[in-house]
């Protein structure tokens, strides 16, 4: 496991994301909501909401929408989805920590559509890891590892993890070598 960003860098990256989102927000008069995907996207959404003026904040648990439920044997833990507002006709910023295959985002989009009909969904991620398996493209990326010029020399089975307080002891971004643990994030 090696660190590729410390707490200060993470804070800067979140600022960058917030600035980019802010520009689009100023262009419309629609209500805006920010929805984070458990279990780091929700923390990231809170941080962003602290920097921007969102009308609503929500949390999405995508477990029941995973496309690998029938393959992995054990059922993963189901947590709560907390979106206590109608998302119809809203501009919704969907937030995740790391974008890789795109499968989490696909699940999250399906889940959002079951909750209503937003006018537009934007995708904001802290890290784009590359390695897409679905045609999904983020609107806002703070740290782009998908381009090969990052100089980090990531192997295709390396996992990138974002750590955020209070779930983790401190903020940071790390690269872990391959892990048999099943994950679609």
């Amino acid at each position, binding site marked *: 496991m090696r660190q590729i960003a410390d707490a200060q860098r993470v804070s800067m990256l979140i600022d960058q994301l917030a600035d980019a989102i802010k520009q689009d927000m100023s262009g419309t008069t629609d209500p805006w909501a920010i929805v984070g995907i458990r279990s780091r996207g929700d923390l990231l959404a809170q941080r962003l909401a602290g920097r921007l003026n969102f009308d609503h904040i929500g949390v999405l648990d995508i477990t029941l929408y995973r496309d690998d439920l029938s393959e992995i044997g054990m059922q993963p833990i189901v947590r709560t989805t907390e979106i206590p507002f109608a998302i119809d006709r809203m501009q919704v910023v969907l937030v995740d920590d790391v974008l890789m295959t795109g499968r989490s985002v696909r699940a999250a989009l399906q889940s959002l559509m079951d909750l209503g009909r937003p006018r537009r969904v934007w995708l904001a991620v802290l890290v784009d890891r590359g390695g897409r398996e679905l045609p999904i493209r983020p609107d806002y990326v703070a740290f782009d590892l998908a381009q090969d010029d990052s100089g980090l020399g990531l192997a295709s089975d390396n996992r990138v993890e974002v750590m955020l307080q209070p*779930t983790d002891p401190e903020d940071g971004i790390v690269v872990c070598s391959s892990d048999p643990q099943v994950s679609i994030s």
Partner: protein
Amino acid sequence: MSKTPEPYCWPHKHLLGLQDLSAADILFALQTAVGFLEVSTRSVKKVPALRGKVVANLFMEDSTRTRSSFTLAASRLSADVIDLSGKGSSISKGETLRDTGRNIEAMGIDAIVCRHPLSGAAVQLSRAVNCSVVNAGDGQHEHPTQGLLDIFTIARQLGRTDFDLTGITVAIVGDIAHSRVARSNLYGLLKLGATVVLVGPPTLLPRTFADLGCELSYSLDDVLDRVDVLNMLRIQFERLTSQAFPSVREYATFFGLTTKRLARAKPDVVVMHPGPINRGIELDSQVADGPNSVILSQVSHGLAVRMAVLYLVSGAKHQADSL
């Protein structure tokens, strides 16, 4: 991925009773049910978790609410549901439960939800088939999903979000001897730390229940002021073969929860009933419809609990020895 302190995995392919579950299993099922509550509040009340799976309802005993609750739970998980009932089917032509189960399974079923008038029927069925079996009530043995939903309701009503029921006293009142609801409640509540008092006339409250670790009382009035929950069981006229009490009126006089009795209980006592209510016998109408009653919450929580159970058993590793 989040760091969970202990990597717990639900190990049960079947849900036959709460007696077989550990406290950790019960907690996990209840916590999973919390995640399912919200599904029923959406505009699209469906999640794709069990898409492509088939659940068979095998009900050999009359039931409206449990059967429809299971049907709705399965369809909200996007599973297909087939309904089989005792009357008008081959079961009434003398087919054994084992044969019925194996025939249903041969159609490619993933889980059978079974209700049966004989105690132990669900266990027998689970030994005959390879798919999951969920006990929806077997004779006087257990009704595990009712037990789970009752515990879920108690914990939420009393603000115990971690489902730790230490320090809470629950009275289960009525026909304990014939009640599968009482047994499932008892096993589950004791495992989560609650104190349980079983209350009923001596003819319907065998002394041997004390061996399970609960208190017994033949008088509702004696326990009224110290309990946090009153779970009033239905008098099951269909199961009472002997003269267990002289008259229904006498039973209601001693064990019915009247407005007058309720006034002597703790002001925020939780009043529960597994339904269907015999109004004027177990509960006065004013009590059943009053502010202490959580009877309708029990029904809506039942849906979330059954979704959680179907979700969990369908994902359990298919071990030969798993129960």
